């Protein structure tokens, strides 16, 4: 067997050809740049896991300084926008059922009287909790409100009614994203999601298309070696991957003002590992898929669990153990930690290394399956 010799001339010929084809296929090329932009806008601007200004109905049967202060306090928390003032309990139920309001506050008739007597009156907050995440923060805000909002009014002889100070002070430091800004979490994560999607679909398509059209047979009857063909075909898409990374970094910095604490160059270097891991998946899929349609279907088959189980959309630690185990296999899970770690926490190479080797392991396994299958398809 002659020693395998990688020929750069043939390699560049294939890279050049691939770029021409990429340029000709306007739709796919547009998709590769358009999808990142679309996702940026949708995920970046549209998704907010800490919703504020939720429509609220207030039914106050007690017209007093205290009830007004409570309503004012709700408004001021920025979670509640009082948009309705129903006249009775039935109205409240209707509004909640129809979705006109997310919350209804019911202040009973004898609220102020009981308050003044020190009887701790009830204040009913009804919530449309069909989507738990939509009401969670708001309810937490009300809890805090209840202990302090009336302090301003309970002065002089009423001072005794003020809430007792808690036995200890709880000091909370929310690191890395103190304002709970969803975009800070979503936008860097988007980098991983987008690379997963485009890298797998595009490589699987590019190779399957070549086989489907019969051009692969022709290519392999030339002196071009399988390795040259394969690498020559994926290098252009690595470039595309980096274009996507820079698009997102730019958007993160200038559109969403995500604080970039860590080293961008470290991220750019480590992204290579992740890109290649996804390309390996694409190559493997292309060896299984009989046509381009199947290739796309398989790409989605991989993309969906990646999206759902990686911790991109839902908190990773909130998932049951089996789901976490699946998530740990997926490279996106680890890359998300790497990206968020570097950008938001300023992690260095040592800090992110626990998430690098699982990606590397995945890459090695995928690549060996891909290469093994790729060889079989030739013979």
């Amino acid at each position: 067997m002659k020693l395998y010799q990688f020929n750069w001339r043939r390699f560049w010929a294939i890279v050049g050809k691939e770029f021409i084809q990429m340029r000709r296929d306007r739709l796919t090329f547009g998709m590769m740049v358009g999808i990142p932009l679309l996702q940026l806008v949708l995920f970046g601007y549209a998704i907010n896991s800490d919703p504020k200004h939720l429509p609220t109905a207030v039914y106050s049967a007690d017209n007093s300084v205290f009830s007004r202060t409570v309503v004012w306090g709700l408004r001021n928390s920025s979670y509640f926008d009082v948009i309705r003032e129903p006249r009775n309990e039935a109205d409240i139920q209707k509004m909640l059922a129809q979705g006109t309001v997310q919350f209804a506050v019911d202040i009973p008739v004898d609220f102020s009287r009981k308050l003044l007597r020190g009887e701790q009156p009830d204040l009913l907050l009804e919530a449309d909790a069909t989507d738990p995440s939509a009401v969670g923060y708001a309810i937490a805000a009300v809890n805090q409100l209840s202990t302090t909002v009336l302090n301003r009014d309970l002065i002089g002889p009423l001072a005794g009614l003020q809430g007792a100070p808690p036995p200890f002070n709880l000091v909370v430091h929310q690191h890395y994203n103190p304002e709970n800004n969803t975009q800070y979490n979503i936008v860097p994560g988007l980098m991983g999601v987008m690379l997963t999607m485009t890298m797998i679909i595009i490589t699987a398509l590019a190779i399957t298309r070549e086989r489907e059209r019969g051009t692969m047979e022709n290519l392999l009857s030339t002196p071009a070696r399988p390795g040259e063909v394969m690498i020559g075909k994926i290098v252009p898409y690595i470039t595309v991957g980096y274009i996507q990374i820079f698009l997102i970094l730019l958007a993160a910095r200038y559109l969403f003002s995500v604080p970039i604490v860590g080293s961008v160059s470290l991220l750019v270097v480590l992204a290579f590992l992740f890109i290649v891991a996804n390309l390996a998946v694409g190559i493997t899929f292309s060896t299984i898929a009989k046509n381009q349609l199947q290739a796309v279907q398989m790409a989605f088959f991989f993309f969906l669990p990646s999206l759902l189980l990686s911790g991109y959309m839902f908190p990773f630690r909130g998932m049951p153990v089996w789901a976490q185990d699946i998530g740990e296999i997926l490279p996106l899970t680890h890359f998300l930690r790497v990206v968020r770690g570097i950008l938001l926490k300023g992690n260095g190479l040592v800090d992110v290394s626990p998430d690098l080797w699982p990606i590397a392991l995945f890459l090695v396994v995928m690549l060996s399956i891909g290469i093994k299958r790729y060889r079989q398809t030739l013979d």
Partner: protein
Amino acid sequence: MVMSTSDLVIDVQGITKRFGGRTVVNNIPMQVRRGEIYGFLGPNGSGKTTFLRMLCGLLTPDAGSGRCLGYDIRRESGEIKKNVGYMTQRFSFYEDLTIEENLDFVAQIYGVPQRKTAVDKSLERLGLTARRRQLAGTLSGGWKQRLALAACLIHEPRLLLLDEPTAGVDPKARRDFWEEIHQLAAAGLTVLITTHYMDEAERCHRLAYIAYGNLLARGSVEEVVQAAGLTTWEVTGPDLPALAEKIRGQPGVEQVVAFGMTLHISGRDAGKLRESLNPWMTDAYQWQPIESGLEHVFISLMETARDNFS
């Protein structure tokens, strides 16, 4: 006939390929001389394409050995690929690349010296210089075939492997194509071509016929026809379809084929055939023995092969 080995561009023995448990190519030898146009015939799925793929190193034979262009087909497929032009059955260049880009790409892959000139020359020879920036996908079938041939020739190969190059091409384009093949062969290029068309088979210097992976006949057209030992009678007269019905199935009658206003009746056992036809050799019909054609021979071979191998 004595041939020196250096004259043989293809010299292989016992080539065998199995897919799963099925033997697709079974123990096939082939000797092709320099400058020869060698026709490779056989029904669909007979293993022709697989054989070509093994010759140019796309597939590794399970058994057999030999040399192609003087290189070992097992160990030196890299060298073989550099000197072979392989034209696949389907148009397999890039439809989303222009004519020029396709040629340039192939030239680059083969490392053709002075690429620009080579591509220009090829375009000129094709007569496509004016349409060089046209996408290959917009070409008609005949033009695609010419482009594919030009692309196969750009690195000046010593052996051309053509897999059913004229399928779906109109007669005029086919004739031009064969004209070019003969010119190339005259200049010393060796051509191995697979085809279904009998007229094309007759344009080859020599032939091999395979069916179900087995080599059934080889040699020049005359040799193949002679080796088949087929006797053919031509008959004209009234109501030939009825006659055909009666004759078919008689002992010694292997083929009854209508050719325009005549029937051709063939069989390998001349005596038995004559005996079976005797009852109809009356004044109503005009009988005459004719030379068996390639088509008679191939159909006869194919039917024998079906009995023996399938």
